[in-house]
C-alpha cells in the first residue's frame, strides 16, 4: 500500500518536473550579444513594485512603447529595455546602479525615477559615464551637482513653484490661499516656494502624509481659513482624496491648484470627475502637438490603460537614446555626447538640454480638469 502511494506521488512529481523542464529551458536566458552594434539595451531605473510602483510603471511603459516602436522599424537590430526595480526607495539603488554599469550592453538609462534614489545612484553613474535621462526627477538640487551624465526632460520644481504662484496671484487674483503639502521632498519644496512667493496671501498651511486617506482635520482647516484657493504640493493619490473630502464637506467652491504630480488620470480616479472638475495643475510640459497625436492611442492599445503621469515624458526620454542608437552612437561616451547636443521636438516638448542637464524649454503650462479630462489651458511664463 504504502510504497505504491509514495511511488504515485513521485510519479506525479516526475511528470511535473519533466513538463517544466521542457518549457522552462528556452526562457530566461540573459540578453545575448548580437553583432557589433546590435543587442544594445536601455535601462529603466525606478519602481516596479511597492507603493510607488504605479508611477514607475507609467514611466517604464512609456519607455517601453518607444522601444517597441523603434524595434518595429528596426527589426533586424532590436534594442531591449531592461527594467531595474528600485521600489522607489534609495535602499537598493547603489547595487542596481552598479549592475547597470557592469552590463556593458546598456548604453543609457531612463531614470532614476525619484529624487531620493537619484541622489544615491547618480554619483555612481557619473563615475562610470552612463548617460541618464530622467522623465520624472524634479528635485532642483539634482542639476546643481555638476554631474556630467544627468539630464531630465521635465522642468525642476524651481521652475514650477514660481509659475504656480504667479498664476494664483495674477490670473486667479486670489487673496486668500491655503497651502498644503505631503511632506515629500517634491511637495514640500513646491509648497515652500509658494509660501515665499505669495507672502501675506497665504492664510494657512498644513502638511499631510503620503498614503494618508482621512483628511478630515485638514478639510476643517481649509474650510475655516476662509481661503478661496488651496494649493497642494504632492502627488495625485492624496490630492484626489483631499479634493473629494473637501467637496463632500461643502468646500466645493475652494479651487485646487496643484502640480504636475497631480496631472494624471489617477487624480480623477481618486477624486471623482465631479469633484475634480475645475482643478488647475501646473506642469513644465508643453501640450502635446499634433505630431504626437497617436501616443495616447498607442499607449492605450499596448498596455490596455491610459497613459499616466510622465508616461509621455518617458517616451521622449527613451527616444533621445533610440535616436542616438539609430544614428550609430553605440557606446556610452558617444551617446552622452549625443544627448548633450540633442535638439528635437518630442511629444511633450522640444527636447534640448542646458549644460546642467535641465531641459531647455522651461515653459510652464496650466492644465484644467474638465469632465474627467486634462485640458491644456495657458502658458504661464
Amino acid at each position, binding site marked *: 500500500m504504502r510504497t505504491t502511494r509514495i511511488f504515485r506521488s513521485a510519479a506525479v512529481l516526475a511528470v511535473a518536473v519533466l513538463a517544466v523542464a521542457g518549457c522552462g529551458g528556452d526562457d530566461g536566458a540573459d540578453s545575448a550579444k548580437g553583432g557589433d552594434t546590435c543587442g544594445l539595451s536601455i535601462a529603466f531605473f525606478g519602481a516596479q513594485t511597492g507603493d510607488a510602483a504605479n508611477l514607475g510603471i507609467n514611466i517604464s511603459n512609456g519607455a517601453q512603447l518607444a522601444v517597441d516602436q523603434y524595434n518595429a522599424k528596426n527589426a533586424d537590430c532590436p534594442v531591449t529595455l531592461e527594467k531595474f526595480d528600485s521600489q522607489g526607495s534609495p535602499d537598493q539603488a547603489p547595487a542596481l546602479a552598479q549592475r547597470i554599469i557592469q552590463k556593458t550592453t546598456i548604453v543609457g538609462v531612463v531614470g532614476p525615477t525619484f529624487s531620493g534614489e537619484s541622489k544615491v545612484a547618480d554619483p555612481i553613474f557619473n563615475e562610470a559615464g552612463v548617460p541618464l535621462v530622467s522623465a520624472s526627477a524634479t528635485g532642483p538640487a539634482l542639476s546643481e551637482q555638476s554631474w556630467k551624465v544627468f539630464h531630465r526632460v521635465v522642468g525642476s520644481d524651481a521652475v514650477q513653484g514660481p509659475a504656480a504662484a504667479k498664476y494664483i496671484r495674477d490670473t486667479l487674483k486670489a487673496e486668500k490661499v491655503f497651502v498644503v503639502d505631503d511632506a515629500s521632498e517634491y511637495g514640500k519644496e513646491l509648497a515652500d516656494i509658494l509660501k515665499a512667493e505669495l507672502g501675506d496671501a497665504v492664510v494657512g498651511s498644513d*502638511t499631510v502624509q503620503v498614503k494618508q*486617506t*482621512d483628511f478630515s*482635520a485638514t478639510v476643517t482647516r481649509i474650510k475655516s481659513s476662509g481661503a478661496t484657493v488651496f494649493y497642494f504640493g504632492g502627488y495625485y493619490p492624496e490630492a484626489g482624496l483631499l479634493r473629494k473630502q473637501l467637496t463632500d*464637506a461643502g468646500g466645493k467652491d475652494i479651487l485646487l491648484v496643484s502640480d504636475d504630480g497631480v496631472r494624471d488620470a489617477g487624480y480623477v*480616479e*481618486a477624486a471623482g470627475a465631479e469633484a475634480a472638475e475645475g482643478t488647475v495643475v501646473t506642469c513644465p510640459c508643453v501640450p502635446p502637438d499634433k505630431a504626437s497625436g497617436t501616443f495616447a492611442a498607442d499607449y492605450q492599445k499596448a498596455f490596455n490603460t491610459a497613459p499616466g503621469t510622465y508616461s509621455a515624458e518617458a517616451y521622449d526620454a527613451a527616444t533621445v537614446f533610440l535616436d542616438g542608437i539609430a544614428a550609430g552612437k553605440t557606446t556610452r561616451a558617444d551617446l552622452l555626447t549625443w544627448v548633450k547636443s540633442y535638439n528635437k521636438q518630442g511629444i511633450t516638448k522640444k527636447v534640448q538640454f542646458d549644460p546642467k542637464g535641465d531641459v531647455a524649454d522651461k515653459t510652464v503650462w496650466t492644465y484644467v480638469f474638465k469632465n474627467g479630462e486634462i485640458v491644456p489651458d495657458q502658458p504661464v511664463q
Partner: protein
Amino acid sequence: MNIDFLIDNFADLSVTGLAQGAIYALVALGYTLVYGVLRLINFAHSEVFVTGTFATILTLRGIGIGPDDPVPSLLMVLLTLVLASIVAALSSGAVALLVERVAYRPLRRRNAPPLVFLISAVGASLVLMEIYALFLGRDNVRVGNLIKPRTQFTVFGADVTNRQILIVVSAVLMMVVLDSFISRTRLGRGVRAVSQNPDAAALMGVNKDRVIALTFLLGGLMAGVAAVLYDLNFGVTKFSAGFLIGLKAFTAAVLGGIGNLRGALLGGLLLGLAENWGQALLGSAWRDVIAFVFLIVVLMFRPTGILGESLGRARV
C-alpha cells in the same frame, strides 16, 4: 500649537473623528477576536479588510453602478448597500478563513512558537497584497459616490452628514450584534470558553478548530462591513490601503484592551478623536505620531488598555 483652531472647530473635528474611529473600531474587532482566542496578532487582517473594499467595488460594478454614475434612488442605494455589505463581509470572511487554514492551522498542529505565526501572517499579508496588485493594479480604484453627503443636522456648529451617521450607526449596530452573538449564543459561548481556557474547553467537548475558524470568520465579516463603510467614506481603495488602517485598528484594539470587544469600539472611537484633535493642535503631519504617543501614554497608566482584557484570564 493652535489651540484656538481646536476650540473653534472642536465639534466639527469630533464628528469627523468619530466617523473615522468607527471604521477603526470595526477593523479592530478582527484583531481583538483572534487575539482573544489565540493570543496572537493576526497580521494578515489588514489584507482581509482590503479584500472587502475590493469586493464592494466589484459588486457595485457588477450591478452596473459605475464610479461616475449619478446617485440612484434611496431604495436602490439601500438595497445596493445591503448587497455590497453581504458580498464584502462574505469575501472578507472567506479570505480570513483561508488565511487561518493556510497560515495558521498547520502551525497550530505543530505547536509552533507564537512568533512563527506572526511571520507566517506577514507572508500571507504580502501574498494577498501582491495578488490584488496583480489583478487590480497598483493604483487607486474608485467606488461610486453612492451616498451624497448631505447635512442632516448640526451639533454645536458642526455639520453632521447622513454618511457620518450611517457609518457610526452601522459600526455600533454591528458591535451590538457581535457582542450579543458572543454572549448569548451557543457558538459564542464556545468562543468565550476557548478564550478563557482552551484546554478545559476542549475537555468539555468544544471543537477548538471550529471555534478558531469561527473567530476568524467573525473578524472577517466585521472587516467586510468596515470595508463598505470605508469605501463609502473615502471613495477609493488600493492594494496597499490595508497597512495603515490595520496599524491604526490594531492600536485601537490595544488601546481599549485587546481581547475585549467593547474595548475595541471604545479604543477605535477614542483613537479617531485623539487623532483629529491632535492634528488640529500640532498639524496633520504629526497625526500618526500623535496616535502612537497617545497609545504609549495610555498604556503607561493602564498597562492592559482602557477596559482591560475582557475575559480577564490573567496570565501569570
